[in-house]
């Protein structure tokens, strides 16, 4: 047996507020309530604006900072393929820390049924299918949970519109969302959504006891192909541990010509 089962569940579609829409199954019981209906409408509009990106590639640097201010970095490259009518497929390749270099993960994400995930361990040349249960665990020891960085589908939450609010000079909708998938670490998330561009500006995460756990701030938004907004920086602060993580994105590319065959079990072995 091999001890290294790290990156268990490692995921990363990393495109917060992206992906395709499955409009079926959205009729929640209280959908008649105006605030619920409004919340859902905002989520659907935000999702719609992410449609047809086809595929994307990007690199990220993750800087982990503990309470004492010590830092650790990780570098990951991410390829994503849009799947019509389902969650995205994504391939993540880990470049640092050096001891896990070459490790790669492949995820077929789904709205409500469990994601399918594989992990490639280069030292053993072994591909392992792994369980997708660990949604609330830390991604690579960071303050981002797996569920924070996985493909965001409309159906993964139910919604409630709360109010309009100006955040750092930006007109926002404040929408609460409640995880509809199993094994979430949250009771709810409060999202500030840019009224004009329907992109997330800030998310507050409340833990299973409904206590504020983390805040995620998005900054340095850039628009690609005159349509898709991506934040250069995502800053997550954990109020309960005093730790924080900064995700810095670069080299975003869209419609690069990736195909299904770049996202199968065999391609995982040659991901490099």
């Amino acid at each position, binding site marked *: *047996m091999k*001890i290294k089962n790290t990156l268990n569940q490692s995921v990363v579609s990393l495109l917060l507020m992206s992906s395709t829409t499955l409009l079926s199954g959205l009729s929640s019981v209280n959908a008649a309530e105006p605030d619920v209906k409004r919340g859902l409408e905002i989520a659907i509009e935000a999702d719609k604006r992410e449609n047809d990106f086809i595929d994307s590639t990007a690199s990220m640097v993750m800087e982990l900072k503990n309470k004492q201010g010590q830092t650790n970095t990780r570098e990951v490259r991410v390829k994503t393929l849009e799947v019509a009518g389902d969650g995205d497929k994504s391939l993540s390749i880990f470049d640092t820390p*050096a001891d896990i*270099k*070459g490790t790669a993960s492949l995820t077929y994400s789904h709205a409500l049924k469990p994601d399918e995930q594989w992990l490639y361990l*280069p030292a053993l040349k072994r591909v392992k*299918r792994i369980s997708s249960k660990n949604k609330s665990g830390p991604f690579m020891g960071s303050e981002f949970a797996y569920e924070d960085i996985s493909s965001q589908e409309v159906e993964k939450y139910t919604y409630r519109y709360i109010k309009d609010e100006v955040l750092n000079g930006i007109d926002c909708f404040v929408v609460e969302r409640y995880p509809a998938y199993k094994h979430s670490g949250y009771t709810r998330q409060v999202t500030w959504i840019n009224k004009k561009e329907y992109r997330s500006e800030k998310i507050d995460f409340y833990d299973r006891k409904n206590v504020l756990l983390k805040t995620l701030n998005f900054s340095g938004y850039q628009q690609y192909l005159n349509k898709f907004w991506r934040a250069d920086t995502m800053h997550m602060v954990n109020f309960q541990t005093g730790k924080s993580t900064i995700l810095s994105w670069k080299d975003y590319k869209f419609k*690069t010509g990736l195909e299904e*065959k770049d996202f199968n079990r065999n391609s995982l072995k040659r991901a*490099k």
Partner: protein
Amino acid sequence: MNLLQRFFLLVNTPLAGISMSGILLLSLSVKAHADWSGNVAVQTRTFFNDPLITNPQQHNNYLSFSAEPEYYSAWNNNDQSLTITPFIRIDQYDKERTHGDLREFSYQQVFDDWELRVGVSKVYWGVTESQHLVDVINQTDSVENVDGEDKLGQPMIKATFEKDWGTLGLFVLPYFRERTFQDIEGRPRTSPVVDDTQTSYESSDKEQHIDYAARWFNYYGELELGLAYFNGTSRDPLFSPGLKNGAAVLKPYYPLMQQLSIDAQITTEELLFKLEAIARDWQNFDSITLQLVDERYFALTTGIEYTFVGIIETDADLGLVVEYLYDDRDQQANTFFQNDLMMGLRLAINDADSTEALLGIIYDLDNQEHLLSLEASRRFAGNWTATLEVRLFNNISDTSLVKSIEEDDFVQLDIAYYF
């Protein structure tokens, strides 16, 4: 030593965890790129007991160094690549453990729905954790560790076809690699020592015999399924008693074999179910006449894996692995795993330093032999890892070739620097 190999399959050392990829360019560009990566490490082994009186050449403390750099170059939109991974270990006492190997020296080209790899390489087949019955392409580098997870590079021509009906790999293996064995000063080892200058083969072509293998793999939702066939020289040697300079030795013999195998895993959100099973035709020594006779046997490993996520309100995960190991030759098997139970506990703290620990036991339900192992590792100072291993061997059968390892309980520390 086949025994020793199969005997200790508990855990693998992350020391072998050489980093593979080498990509300086973070972008997924079409440009060619090349890179060096790898690790250097220092290792100490300390044995709790003095060696047996019959093995006065052995020591109580061993020091060794290893290096495993990797050169990787890719071009033509990464469709063509070259990987070179030499490995070397220098051991303080064991002249056989002081060894080098080309783990990888291969060229790969990716075409539309197939790919070709030519050169020295490694493949992994299978799904279970306690032993790897199905994984028969690469020879075990058994001087590296007792768990048998370290492999020697295998010369191969490999074509992999990706079709709607699954992935088909076809292998031609033109050269056989002998298993590595400890020198007289090595520890733990068989007693008497294996003399690989007296190696013999069933095939008159010896190590030049050309082996063939095929493997089909596909997945259907929660089910992953693999079928494989191997025809060639067995990676597992048999042993017969011999003499060298008047002293008793074991002589390795490599028979030809045909093996059919199946491996399957069902992955639900909560639980993993695993199965590996083989049927093998080969020669083995008859236990009474000590003559080589044809043998057909069946063996399997099956089990489950369950992970408790976020235990005791922390970020830590605790994984539970239970596997049953069976061989239909019963006590005649040249493996200790004929009716054994393996249990493992894997703790992942999920912190920034990737602190992990694995506790494992394999228990023989017939004769109460058991093997215990504890492995713990963490990262430090960015590019360094520390790995601690403890291995304990208890109640080893009196008739075993590795009876002497009862005295070979040890603790091992690896400090590795990755670049």
